[in-house]
């Protein structure tokens, strides 16, 4: 084995090659995905519900058998050596797994004991984590009485109790209010600074943007594009100019707007959605006047004109043709729907 090859392997925490997962009924949840996660980084999957994020995570943490493909975690193969992987990874699922009838402290002891930690060591570790997660005051309260944010933090503590090398978080802040979300981000950053590799999925572009060093945009079971948030945004080539037409505008006006924007020098492809046409324009911020003049001389009625730095949402739009519209205020149920729905 040559040295560069060894070094490359050493840096990889997760290697996924050509992962495919089919569910009964001809549903292909994950469609030939390959990626690497390096040791010590925060890597994210950004994508809407049903994109295949959860299925991929569940395959990596040994909860789902891949239909085909290869997954290595810290050098161990998921199908050949699942126990070694279970010892090394922590997993906080989208649907929180805490026992409502047990106290926060008891839940942590249970998880620690399940990871072969002695009772005495488990108690010490539980107290330590309760303090880190700001739960020390409610340690003796039943988890059933906890708020959404507290349950998330308890679940995160559970995933950390055996000091994993790698932490998986499936939509860690779904259902949290902005304040709790930011607090959780703070916890995750600190954990990462202390050396923990983190793999998270999210449908919030803000979360991907602030937390992830690298991310993959995933839709319909495929990775659309992969890179750092800055790299991904740079691929759009300039600032985003969005022209919104009045609701009464006819189709021909729409087409005319599109062709005008398309025809400008340095314009990357235009996208239209609802009553808006968006274009990425090189040096867009200094060329607003040019855009207005062109639209005006073609008699295009403009309801609104926006200039923005490209966002991950724009990247998503470019690669999927859709917006990553997620109502961030909506609170999804924290419990699983009835039965064991196969999350994908």
């Amino acid at each position, binding site marked *: 084995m040559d040295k560069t090859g060894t070094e490359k392997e050493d840096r990889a925490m997760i290697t996924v090659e050509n992962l495919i997962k089919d569910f009964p009924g001809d549903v292909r949840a994950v469609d030939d995905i390959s990626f690497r996660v390096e040791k010590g980084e925060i890597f994210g999957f950004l994508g809407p519900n049903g994109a295949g994020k959860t299925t991929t995570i569940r395959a990596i943490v040994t*909860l789902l058998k891949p239909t085909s493909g290869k997954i290595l975690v810290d050098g161990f193969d998921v199908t050949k050596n699942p*126990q070694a992987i279970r*010892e090394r990874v922590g997993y906080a*699922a989208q649907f929180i797994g805490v026992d409502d*009838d*047990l106290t926060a402290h008891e839940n942590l002891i249970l998880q620690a004991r*399940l*990871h072969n930690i002695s009772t005495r060591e488990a108690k010490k570790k539980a107290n330590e984590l309760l303090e880190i997660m700001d739960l020390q005051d409610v340690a003796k309260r039943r988890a059933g009485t906890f708020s959404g944010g507290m349950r998330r933090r308890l679940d995160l503590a559970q995933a950390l109790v055996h000091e994993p090398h790698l932490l998986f978080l499936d939509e860690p802040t779904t259902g949290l209010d902005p304040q709790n979300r930011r607090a959780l981000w703070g916890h995750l950053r600190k954990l990462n600074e202390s050396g923990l590799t983190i793999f998270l999925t999210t449908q919030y572009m803000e979360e991907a943007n602030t937390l992830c060093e690298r991310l993959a945009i995933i839709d319909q079971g495929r990775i659309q594009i992969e890179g750092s948030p800055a790299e991904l945004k740079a691929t759009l080539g300039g600032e985003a100019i969005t022209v919104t037409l009045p609701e009464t505008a006819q189709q021909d006006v729409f087409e005319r707007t599109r062709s005008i924007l398309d025809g400008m020098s340095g314009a990357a492809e235009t996208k239209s959605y609802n009553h808006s046409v968006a274009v990425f324009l090189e040096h867009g911020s200094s060329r607003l006047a040019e855009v207005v003049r062109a639209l005006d001389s073609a008699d295009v009625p403009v309801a609104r004109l926006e200039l923005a730095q490209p966002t991950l949402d724009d990247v998503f739009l470019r690669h999927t043709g859709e917006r990553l519209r997620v109502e961030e205020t909506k609170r999804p149920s924290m419990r699983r729907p009835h*039965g064991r729905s196969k999350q994908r």
Partner: protein
Amino acid sequence: MIRSLREAGVLWRRNMLKLTRVPMLLFFSLFQPLLFLLLFSQVFSRLSEMPGFGYENYLQFLVPTIVGLTTLNSAFQSGMGMVNDIDDGLLDKFLIAPIRRSSILLGKVLADATRMALQALLILGFAYIMGARVETGILGVGLLILIAVLFGIAWAGISNVVALRTGNAELTMLIGILITFPVLFLSTGFMPQALLPDWLGTAAQFNPITYLIDALRALVNEGWNWTAIWQALAVTMGLASLTLTAATRAFRKVIS
């Protein structure tokens, strides 16, 4: 082996903690049997005067049936617990831990067994207050509970198959009631074999519950009837090998 027991012990302890936190879990399976014990022992009390009945009074005759009914109910509680653990994401937590899959099932069986034993003991306590006595004494009570619990584990296999296949706690409970009642009334649970209509007497002979109740009834009323005891244990083992295999298969399917 030791490792499996240790791992199962951790999960057993969690279930016992739940039992102390939510005493309802202990009493859940007791209401209906208690109601039957109170009502039937009064309503059918004159039955003991019938020729061919062969027991001191209907209460003495009924107590083993009620112990059996309690474990059957408790067995379906097992399936509901399984669905709840799946819905609450707890099964995933157990599966992601570096423990054996078999330890998860063993922990559940041990916890179910403990709960069933406590429930059977409570029912016997009530029966004692009502005046029922166990012929074979303390040792008999021990064996009676052991047989009932073993049968309950076998029966819990059915409830877990239903639970794992439907993934619905309410449906599991409903199917439990729908199965339990016919099989209980098609046994010698409420009437001695001699007094059952011919067709029912024949049906009862093919009903595993009959063998359970006959053994329990012997321990309560006759003494150490080893034939009845061995028959009950053999029927239980046969039933368990079927139901627990099916349950394990359903479990594997859900976690794969």
